[in-house]
């Protein structure tokens, strides 16, 4: 079950499509917004809600990189690693965050606040290097900028 507001939102989204199943990606975003990640209960609930089998939802969740099936930090720091960002120092940004937060790629800080991941092209090539924190884009990032940004995240 989602919150009443999100249930209403999902009901509305379902009306966009001739088949309920099409709403699976939006529904998974709702689940993730509510629980921080996609839980086992979410998978079962979405399957029931959209007339899908549990394994059909599971195979969708695991295909798309923007969903997580395990808990992640409050802030997902996603450093773009693809060519345009790499040419302008993405690796340095990633290493800087690793040292600052004492975590490696794919890891979460002990307090559960930050998860660091490396992601593929975010579409900000002309504004490289680029970092996405949850859904917020940060362009032309520098190591100093990253320090300020992280300290500002409460």
């Amino acid at each position, binding site marked *: 079950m989602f919150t009443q507001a999100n249930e209403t939102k999902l009901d509305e989204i379902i009306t966009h499509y001739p088949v309920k199943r099409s709403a699976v990606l939006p529904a998974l975003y709702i689940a993730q917004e509510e629980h921080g990640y996609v839980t086992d209960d979410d998978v079962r609930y979405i399957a029931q809600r959209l007339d899908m089998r549990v394994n059909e939802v599971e195979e969708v969740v695991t295909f798309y990189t923007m969903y997580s099936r395990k808990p992640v930090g409050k802030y997902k720091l996603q450093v773009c*690693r693809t060519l345009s960002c790499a040419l302008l120092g993405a690796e340095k940004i990633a290493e800087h965050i690793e040292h600052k937060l004492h975590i490696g790629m794919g890891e979460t800080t002990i307090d559960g606040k930050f998860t660091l991941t490396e992601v593929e092209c975010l579409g900000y090539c002309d504004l490289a290097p680029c970092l996405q924190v949850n859904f917020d884009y940060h362009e032309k990032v520098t190591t100093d900028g990253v320090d300020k940004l992280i300290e500002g995240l409460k």
Partner: protein
Amino acid sequence: MTKVLTSRFHLKGQACDIDVYKQTGGYQALPKALKEFKPDQVIDEVKKSVLRGRGGAGFPTGMKWSFVPKESKRPKYVVCNADESEPGTGKDRDLMRYDPHQMIEGMIIAGYALGSNASYIYIRGEYWFIKEILEKAIAQAYAQGYLGKNILGSGFDHDMYVHPGAGAYICGEETALLESLEGKRGHPRLKPPFPAVVGLYGGPTVVNNVETLAVVPHIILNGGEWYKALGTEKSGGTKLFTVSGHVNNPGNFEVPMGYPLMSLINNECGGISGGRKLKAVIPGGSSVPILTAEECEKVNMDYESVAAAGSMLGSGGVIVMDETADIFESTMNLTHFYKHESCGWCTPCREGTRWLYKVFQRMKRYEGRSGDVELLYDLADKILGKSFCALGDAAAMPVQSAIKKFREDFDRRIKHNLIQIAKAAD
């Protein structure tokens, strides 16, 4: 230079408001199309413009539209491919965040031309803030009667929805996109049948890129001939290029088709960073063959000229690399991308990209074995043309072209060669 698609970019997003869009010439093409054009005439006008798909494949848009059967038992759909994820490309991002109505108006006109009453914008999930911009714009369009039932009293109905992807490059491939929109894994479909005949929910479907659809209102307003005349004989109109990498002023630039690549780099982008020397350019997004500095001198940015130079115009993502770049490293970076984004459906691509990356990894440690460069080339050959969709080709072509043109950057990674070099130095 005529700015067609970027004329509202200087407003920095104010044109997201429908009233600003209308004050600057917006929503004039749609009433004109509904009043003065029969659906077929819209398609003819688009054909005259020689507009070619701006997502990467460059397929003539008018022809794609004409493949949609007139009579269909199943509903027809217009789908906007806003899953922009080709490395090096960020043009659709600005087209949508600075001027969403331009594309929406183009989609409604496309819907009218094809007899479709519903359209979807499939946008990459990372562009969540743009999804919200589009949803607001669509709500405004409904409120002013440009969407919904009986649009502007014409009797034509059209609904529009925004659908978020969730981080899969393969969903930019049009049939994988349709699978994803139907709530499945993004695996490409076998073609034929092409989406124009059997597409979304089994209905005839046209999938067009953001930039392609954004051009449509201008073609209706000014005529196909006018648009064509902006570019070259076979590549009509203007094109947005995202220039990234080692240039002083990276960004999105709209120039006429046929504009010289070096002018784009030197004028629009203020030249190479730090006054260094140009080494290589990937002219059309990461999937296309690389060009050497000498080759760049002669290239004009239109489909034919870039093809004549042995590469492709692709999505218009221009990645510039100066003399400090190591083409082995840049090619390895892209191979990682394709390995990560391979959907896993077919063996040549799934296994081939992983194998390529494995060889790259040992070469990166300067532990390449004799014959590894040939092995890379051969592996790429075993993927090229043998994969289920074009992702395999996109992974293979950059590897082969980089080896052909920048062999020394690869040879340096072979252990045996290093020993020879050390011996020679003694």
